[in-house]
Structures are given as structure tokens and as C-alpha cells.
């Protein structure tokens, strides 16, 4: 099962949260926990902007979906590509699970691993220019392999 959705620009948060709720309304899950990430107005940026490498994002997500399935849970995720203005949202991750504790642990672990492992690059947008958010970025596992 893959439930990974990519959109150009900001996410339609209200629609996505409602649609996912409806999609699983008959699945007998006791807990639904979405995490919604919104672009903060910080240091005068106009927007954030995102590049995504989809093949590896999909395989990373599929591996997580297998892990969720082993706990009778399901994960959904939506992410923006391109520019996302301040006070709009770029990221939603959600877990559905029969059990509360599984859901609470999984949303935490999924979001943290997402930050470290999802092949997505973030840029600040200032005066229409994209500036790689280098200091806020995390080298992926195995980085430096080619440094010699």
C-alpha cells in the first residue's frame, strides 16, 4: 500500500485531513494522528521552497508503510513541491492505528525519521531567490562515502 501524495505549492490542509478521515472511517481504527507542518514567518522569508527526489522518497515511504502494517496501522503523507508561502502548510503525515499508544509512538518516530531520511531539500525564498537551507539540513545516513 502506498499513500504518498505530492502537490505543487501549499497543501489544501482542510481537504486532506477531511478526506483521509473519510477514507478510513470504516476501517475500525481507534486513533488518527495527523502532523501538519506550516511555514513560519521567520527572518524575513517570503516562502520556503522544496525539491523532492521522488523515487527514493517513495521507497523510503514504502518501507515505513510495511513497518506500520506490522502494527496493523497505516501511514499517509502529503508534501509540497516548489514554493510554499509563510503561514501555509507544506507537510502532512498521519497515522491510523487500532491502538492509541502505537499511533502516538509511530507519528513521533515517522516524523523524526522523515526529517533525517526523506530526500527533500529546503530553500528559503527571499526577494524571489531560492537559498538552500544548508544549516538546518541533515546529512543522510551514509553521507561522506565518496569523500575519499
Amino acid at each position, binding site marked *: 500500500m502506498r499513500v504518498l501524495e505530492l502537490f505543487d505549492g501549499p497543501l489544501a490542509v482542510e481537504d486532506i485531513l477531511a478526506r483521509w478521515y473519510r477514507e478510513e472511517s470504516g476501517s475500525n481504527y481507534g486513533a488518527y494522528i495527523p502532523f501538519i507542518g506550516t511555514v513560519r514567518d521567520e527572518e524575513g522569508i517570503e516562502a520556503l521552497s522544496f525539491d523532492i527526489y521522488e523515487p527514493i522518497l517513495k521507497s523510503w515511504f514504502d518501507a515505513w508503510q510495511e513497518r506500520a502494517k506490522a502494527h496493523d496501522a497505516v501511514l499517509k503523507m502529503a508534501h509540497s513541491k516548489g514554493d510554499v508561502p509563510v503561514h501555509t502548510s507544506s507537510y502532512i503525515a498521519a497515522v491510523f492505528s487500532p491502538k492509541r499508544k502505537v499511533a502516538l509512538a509511530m507519528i513521533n518516530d515517522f516524523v523524526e525519521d522523515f*526529517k533525517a531520511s526523506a530526500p527533500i531539500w529546503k530553500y528559503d525564498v527571499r526577494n524571489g531567490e531560492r537559498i538552500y537551507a544548508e544549516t538546518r539540513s541533515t546529512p543522510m545516513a551514509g*553521507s561522506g562515502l565518496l569523500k*575519499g
Partner: protein
Amino acid sequence: MVKVEFLGPIGKAPLELDVTNLAELSKALQGDPEMKKWLENCAVAVNDTMVADLNHPLKSGDRVSLLPPVCGG
């Protein structure tokens, strides 16, 4: 030939190189001064699978991707 692509902010056009493993690719890229910083912090995928072994063999038609530090969300 092996295709090498540079993802996200690296902003470098893809290369075609005649190398038989990642160690040879490493040597070839070290000759490029603008790549020095990225070699320090990039992870590597071969044909969209992450790899962690410098001895990983490469054959003609393989595609190597360099993935710089990430920040989704």
C-alpha cells in the same frame, strides 16, 4: 558508461563516467574542486537504492545519485 546525477541544491549537470565501482567514482569526483564540499556531506544511491559500501560495483548503464543534506517538512 555510468551516469552520475547531482540532486537538490548541488546544481551540477549530470556526468557520464567510465568507472567500475564507487571508489573509482570518488577518485574521479575529487578532481573537481566545486565538488569537495558536497563529497563530504552527500549520501549515495545506485539505481535509486541507498548504498554504504565504496566497493559497490558499477556497470554500464548504472545511475549514481548524490544526495546532499535534507530538510523536508
